[in-house]
């Protein structure tokens, strides 16, 4: 293969970490462009080290490249040094593997993992010389200068977004041609097949988008029109033409053992954030913490079988050569066969091959301590608890099923097992939180410190114990019971942190307790972008024009750019962050059906305000609405048949076939009149 580099050697040698831009990693896929007809470039709009650590892109990269007609490549945000040089020297953004310009691709897929990367989306489009707004990609000028409709496959790639932030795509909706709502393994093949078909027919870009919008889970923002009340809230949100579904239902995999997982993981040369094999053991979470978006939008919980996971682990370790494997899920302790899996991994890889096994998001109990003492160096490692709320009252409000006894018992066992470092994570600024709740954070840390000195005799102590408290400020997210919650000003947030800090300083064992808190201004920006509507896109563009980039990086972000951008685009921050939202208000994201119904979320909001807890999905069903997907924890398997779990409210029993394979494209051309997606909005709107 002849060496192809989009960047001159002189530039590569003058920027930090040139290996970010080469695309020659182990297991990177190279294909002959002559032999494929769809070129897809998958983007994580942040720096390489972060993007390369993302599991979802690895899964999709593998899946797309399994198609003989498709070559999927990658692109990440050029770091600030290269960004500057590319603008100065007029260099176009390129995909890593082929080093070809992004503009020449058929699809540009952008994953949206956090709101503070929104300015980077514009960087990607801008450096690729793709018009920022989807509407500006529809038309071209002919020789006489008249506007004509752009044909599919000419000029700009189809820009498609996905990931958790796509559950409220509205703040960035104008920048995207399509959004994929849900898990990528389900309808991407349909979309690519449709693309092939439309291109053969010679359709326009718009005609393709209209047909794509009829694939379940695919949302085309251009085809929907929001209308607003005078007070700025949403009045209606409707498709602009017949045949476009009023509601988009997320797409999920019903059986995780049946979809392919990464066959050959990409192995970067440089040290990336997640430099290990990631073994996804389950999707979704049974817990139902009321602040947690992932816990709601990935419902229902679905597990992988032990057999599949053992095979995955062998293959991924063998193909990557990584020395560490990490079990990944929202709450790994809830994986039913955890013990068998961990034992197998230790026997097969840990003992003989020196492979480290890392177990994030474990609840601290006897089993997990036993496992951790086997796989980690007790002296060096720390134990992490995430009580999220300092007082029991607060933990009831957020439905965190963790009591003070659980925490103290876990800590006592850990201290007896030789650990002396404990990390505690909390959130500040949650609904109903009082000063007393904030002080309880420091008091809990003090209790744990006292427990250490009471439990471990002096001669057995390995120095002081070290309790580290970290607090972040709570940001209400769409599709959570707290989507109605009000936020605070940055100054108020800092006051909350100071309360905790004072209490820590006054505690008896303050020398054993450390306290860190999160940046407050970024929290408020995240709040604006998380629950924003389409109007916010102008603010994002204005901030980008002022230089906003890598806003998730404290050394690069600048609050003043955003304040100016809001002022210039007429966006009132308080409207989005501090306003009390009405219970009957239409939210910009209501047109998406993520599973849990709005009625369930509202019930949960009311229970939160009453400090009532809701049992988790293993204990009993709370009829959230996720049973409509016909899979996972909502069902028991009996004699090979799936049976709806007892307690699942019949009001929410949807046809079990809802998330089965979508109909072929031919059927999609004429949408049925009784489109199921259109019915849901009526049944749930009440």
């Amino acid at each position, binding site marked *: 293969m002849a060496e192809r580099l989009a960047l001159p050697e002189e530039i590569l040698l*003058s920027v930090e970490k040139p290996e970010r831009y080469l695309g020659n990693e*182990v297991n990177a896929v190279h294909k002959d462009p002559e032999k494929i007809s769809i070129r897809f470039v998958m983007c994580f709009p942040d720096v390489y080290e972060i993007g390369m650590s993302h599991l979802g892109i690895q899964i999709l990269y593998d899946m797309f490249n399994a198609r003989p007609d498709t070559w999927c490549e990658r692109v990440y945000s050029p770091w600030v040094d290269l960004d500057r040089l590319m603008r100065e020297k007029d260099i176009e953004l390129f995909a890593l593997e082929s080093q070809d310009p992004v503009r020449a691709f058929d699809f540009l897929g952008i994953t949206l993992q956090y709101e503070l990367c929104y300015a980077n989306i514009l960087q990607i489009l801008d450096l690729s010389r793709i018009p920022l707004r989807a509407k500006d990609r529809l038309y071209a000028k002919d020789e006489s200068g008249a506007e004509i409709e752009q044909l599919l496959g000419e000029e700009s790639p189809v820009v498609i977004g996905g990931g958790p932030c796509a559950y409220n795509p509205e703040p960035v909706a104008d920048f995207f041609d399509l959004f994929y709502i849900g898990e990528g393994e389900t309808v991407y093949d349909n979309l690519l097949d449709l693309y092939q078909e439309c291109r053969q027919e010679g359709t326009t870009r718009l005609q393709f988008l209209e047909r794509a919008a009829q694939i379940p889970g695919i949302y085309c923002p251009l085809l929907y029109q929001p209308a607003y009340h005078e007070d700025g809230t949403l009045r209606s949100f409707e498709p602009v033409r017949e045949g476009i579904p009023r509601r988009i239902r997320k797409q999920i995999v019903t059986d995780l053992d049946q979809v392919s997982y990464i066959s050959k993981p990409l192995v970067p*040369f440089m040290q990336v954030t997640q430099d290990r094999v990631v073994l996804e053991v389950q999707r979704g979470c049974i817990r139902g913490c009321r602040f947690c978006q992932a816990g709601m939008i990935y419902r229902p919980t679905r597990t992988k079988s032990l057999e599949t996971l053992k095979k995955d682990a062998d293959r991924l370790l063998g193909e*990557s050569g*990584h020395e560490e494997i990490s079990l990944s899920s929202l709450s790994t302790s809830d994986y039913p066969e955890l013990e068998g899996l961990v034992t197998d991994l230790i026997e097969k890889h840990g003992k003989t091959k020196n492979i480290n096994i890392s177990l994030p998001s474990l609840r601290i109990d006897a089993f997990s301590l036993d496992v951790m003492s086997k796989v980690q160096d007790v002296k060096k490692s720390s134990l992490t608890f995430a009580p999220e709320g300092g007082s029991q009252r607060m933990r009831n409000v957020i439905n965190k099923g963790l009591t003070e006894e659980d925490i103290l018992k876990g800590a006592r066992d850990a201290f007896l097992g030789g650990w002396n470092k404990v990390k505690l994570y909390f959130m500040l600024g949650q609904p109903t939180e009082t000063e007393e709740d904030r002080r309880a954070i420091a008091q809990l840390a003090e209790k744990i410190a006292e427990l250490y000195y009471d439990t471990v005799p002096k001669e057995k102590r390995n120095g002081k114990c070290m309790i580290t408290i970290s607090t972040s400020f709570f940001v209400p997210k769409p599709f959570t019971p707290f989507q109605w919650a009000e936020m605070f000003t940055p100054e108020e947030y800092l006051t909350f942190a100071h309360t905790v800090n004072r209490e820590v300083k006054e505690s008896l064992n303050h020398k054993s307790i450390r306290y860190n808190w999160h940046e407050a201004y970024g929290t408020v920006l995240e709040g604006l972008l998380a629950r924003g509507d389409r109007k916010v896109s102008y603010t994002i563009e204005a901030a980008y024009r002022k230089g906003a980039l890598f806003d998730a990086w404290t050394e690069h972000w600048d609050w003043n750019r955003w304040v100016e951008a809001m002022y210039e685009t007429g966006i009132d921050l308080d409207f989005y962050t501090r306003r009390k939202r009405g219970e009957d208000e239409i939210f910009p994201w209501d047109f998406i059906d993520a599973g849990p119904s709005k009625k369930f979320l509202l019930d949960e909001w009311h229970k939160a305000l009453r400090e009532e807890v809701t049992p988790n999905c293993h204990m009993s069903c709370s009829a959230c609405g996720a049973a409509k997907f016909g899979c996972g924890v909502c069902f028991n398997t009996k004699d090979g048949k799936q049976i709806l779990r007892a307690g699942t409210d019949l009001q929410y029993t949807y046809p079990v076939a809802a998330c089965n394979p979508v109909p072929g494209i031919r059927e999609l051309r004429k949408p049925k009149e009784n489109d199921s997606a259109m019915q849901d909005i009526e049944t749930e709107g009440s």
Partner: protein
Amino acid sequence: MRVRVKYSKQGLMRFIGHLDMMRYFQKACRRAGIDVVYTEGMSPHMSMSFALPLGVGMTSDSEYVDVDLVESIPGQEIVNRLNRSVPEGIHFTEARQIPEGKIHKGMNLAARADFTLRMKPCTVPETGPAEAGESQARSQAEPFVVSSEDSRRTPWDLAWHDDFLSWLKKPEIMVMKKGKKALKEINIRPLIFEARFDGPKLMLGLSAGLDRNIRPELVMQAFADQTGREYHPCMFSINRDEVYADKGKDGQHAFVPLIALGKDLS
């Protein structure tokens, strides 16, 4: 059993730094199913050592790593297995058994490295001569201007070949070199063992190793500075051709390629 493995590092791999290569080689061994001995102690790691770091941007035909294997594997099989598990740009060529013990490690033996330098067609930066210093290649300074058709020319006039050879006739060539602690002035002339032109290519044999290591960029920078030429680290593409141990005695050199110190493994 200690084995010395030789490989070449070409193409895009020239941008991969030394630390990343070390991590990469460990992963390559695991993919190839070659069991490497782990060190004892607080943080066990694979027992391996690299002979001589290679600067980012340079290619090489002779990179050496000494590695302790759990069991004996024939040399050719080590080479074949590793080659199946690496991407383009890395190619393993030989694996031979070497004696254990610190003094036999490549990093302690390396005494000379040979380089081939080729001048690249680039334009000289408009903002005056680049500043001295070894870390310059990675500095934030204005990058070299991209060559376009009309500016494709060699940066130095052809007379530089002769000038270079007569410059080397000086008994002393003093340059400022960044040592472990501070900048100090050293005489690099005794550290240049050989220099000759082969058509447009310049071959340099330079002192290498833990104490008296000099890089080809330092030589070219000194030459440029002392003869009134402008120098930029991207002017030359540089390949490391071979790394040698010095088996000579009493001040007489006898350079032997590192791989030749091992014995066949079959």
